């Protein structure tokens, strides 16, 4: 079976700074990939290039056997790529339920036609909120949420688009241990439903527990890719994290 996501030799520069330098990554269908790297190593830039927020200068991104280059972010979302943002970016003027309504209206409808009646839409929003444990707050505004709830909303909104691949960009930063467990369990459940997941994270215990495979980015280059236990013992990786 061909890979779901195929990132081939992509490069991204910001002026003279090379943020990504010939990065190659493949992700198989149903896989759980962990992506780690020190701050500023290009993880978020990679996500932005995969999702279309930024356009890579060389190389290409293939997703589900389609070349994505030149496509805007919303077109990629329509084709089944979804992401959560590192810092949650909810729609501030809308209730939680309406926040989830947006991907349903604009992505799920665009993909499969407006099959849903307004009642179905409301039910689906509720289901999604139920999944992340936010159902009782359906009619509240994002400003009423705690940090962990905000992250859950962010994930629920990405999942609402019914993606094939979900990229979770540091969904756990700054959370307590039990909250990390919460989010991890949620991601595992989503993976069991058949969603391929790329997890970008600094919390190593979570990454190790979650990932079937681990890739490491340092200064815009991929320096390791393989079984998590092997990768963390890789001398180059150790050097990048701990220094000489």
């Amino acid at each position, binding site marked *: 079976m061909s890979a779901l996501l195929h990132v081939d030799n992509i490069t991204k520069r910001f002026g003279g700074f090379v943020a990504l330098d010939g990065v190659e990554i493949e992700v198989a269908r149903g896989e759980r990939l962990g992506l780690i790297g020190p701050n500023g190593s290009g993880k978020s830039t990679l996500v932005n290039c995969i999702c279309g927020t930024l356009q890579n200068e060389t190389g290409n991104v293939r997703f589900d056997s389609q070349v994505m280059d030149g496509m805007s972010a*919303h077109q990629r*979302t329509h084709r089944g790529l979804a992401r959560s*943002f590192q810092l949650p970016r909810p729609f501030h*003027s*809308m209730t939680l339920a309406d926040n989830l309504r947006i991907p349903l209206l604009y992505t799920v409808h665009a993909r499969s036609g407006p099959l849903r009646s307004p009642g179905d839409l409301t039910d689906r929003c509720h289901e999604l909120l139920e999944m992340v444990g936010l159902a009782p707050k359906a009619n509240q505004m994002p400003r009423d949420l705690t940090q962990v709830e905000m992250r859950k909303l962010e994930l629920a909104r990405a999942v*609402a*688009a019914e993606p094939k691949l979900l990229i979770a960009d540091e969904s756990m930063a700054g959370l307590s241990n039990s909250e990390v467990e919460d989010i991890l369990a949620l991601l595992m459940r989503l993976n069991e439903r058949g969603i391929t997941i790329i997890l970008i994270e600094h919390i190593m215990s979570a990454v190790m527990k979650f990932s079937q495979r681990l890739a490491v980015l340092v200064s815009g280059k991929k320096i390791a890719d393989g079984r998590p236990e092997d990768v963390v013992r890789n001398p180059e990786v150790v050097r990048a994290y701990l220094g000489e």
Partner: protein
Amino acid sequence: MKSVTTAKFSLIAGAIGVVILLIAHAVGVDYLYFASYTILQFIVLATAWNILGGYCGYVNFGSAAFFALGAYSSVFIHKLYPLPVPLLIVIGAMVSGVVGLGMGYLTLRLRGSFFAIATLALAVVLQTLVVNWDFVGGSRGAYIIRPEYLEIGSFKIPYIEYLFALMLALAIIALVSARTIERSQLGFGFATIRDDELAAEACGVPTLKLKLIATAISGAFMGMAGAPFPYYIGYLQPSSAFGLEYAVNSIAMPMIGGTTSWVGPLVGAVLLGSAQQYATVTISSAVNLLIVGLMLVGFVIIAPNGIVGLVQERLRRKRS
């Protein structure tokens, strides 16, 4: 959710319009028509501004340009071959809508104050063009002799009453459209652009397309408001059509009324418009902009979300 359907709302709005017409006819004072026409015109302008500025969060300082485009389209066509005013309104809407689309296309990548400055520049460019275009009067301005009466068969309607009725219909169309947009998928999409464009794209919202739709609709309604203006005023000159008061009022009225709902521009336009008409009669027309400025400053401090926002907040507090 309890809500009135668009069809029902249109009927109610239409009925209110007819009642206003009948009352105005019964009172039968010419001045009342003149004054209310201006207020209605501002309802259309404020509602149009709000579709782009309130719903999408893109502040347009060039409202006067779109208004003037509508007005000058009428002058241009009047010089070639006088057409009925309703047709001129349609043409004005098309001209301003297309220019709105063009402006949207050229400024797609500009946000915040950069977008606002670009719209201001558009107004200056268009005014310069009109000032130097002799056919529509250039800097001298253009006279349009308004007929005394509109004759339909044996019916004779005073022309100002006719213009008033047209502007009333436009105001109703603008309000019904704004309300319909607000509750549709399009309205939800507009709101995501206002809140966070990056997140909107990630959710699958085609933000560029929606912005173009918003600039075109907003421009078209402003052109509609401007099209009958030469007939109303009789003498159109660039400095009045591109007047500062249109740009300022189109922004101030929704801000004072509240930008997130169609009610806001209506409330703002009626309140500010009436205050200005009152001041014009009792003090002087020069006081108008001062009133707008003072009210805007006051509301930004007391009710940053406008009157509608203030009322909603009160209701929410009462409920909880």
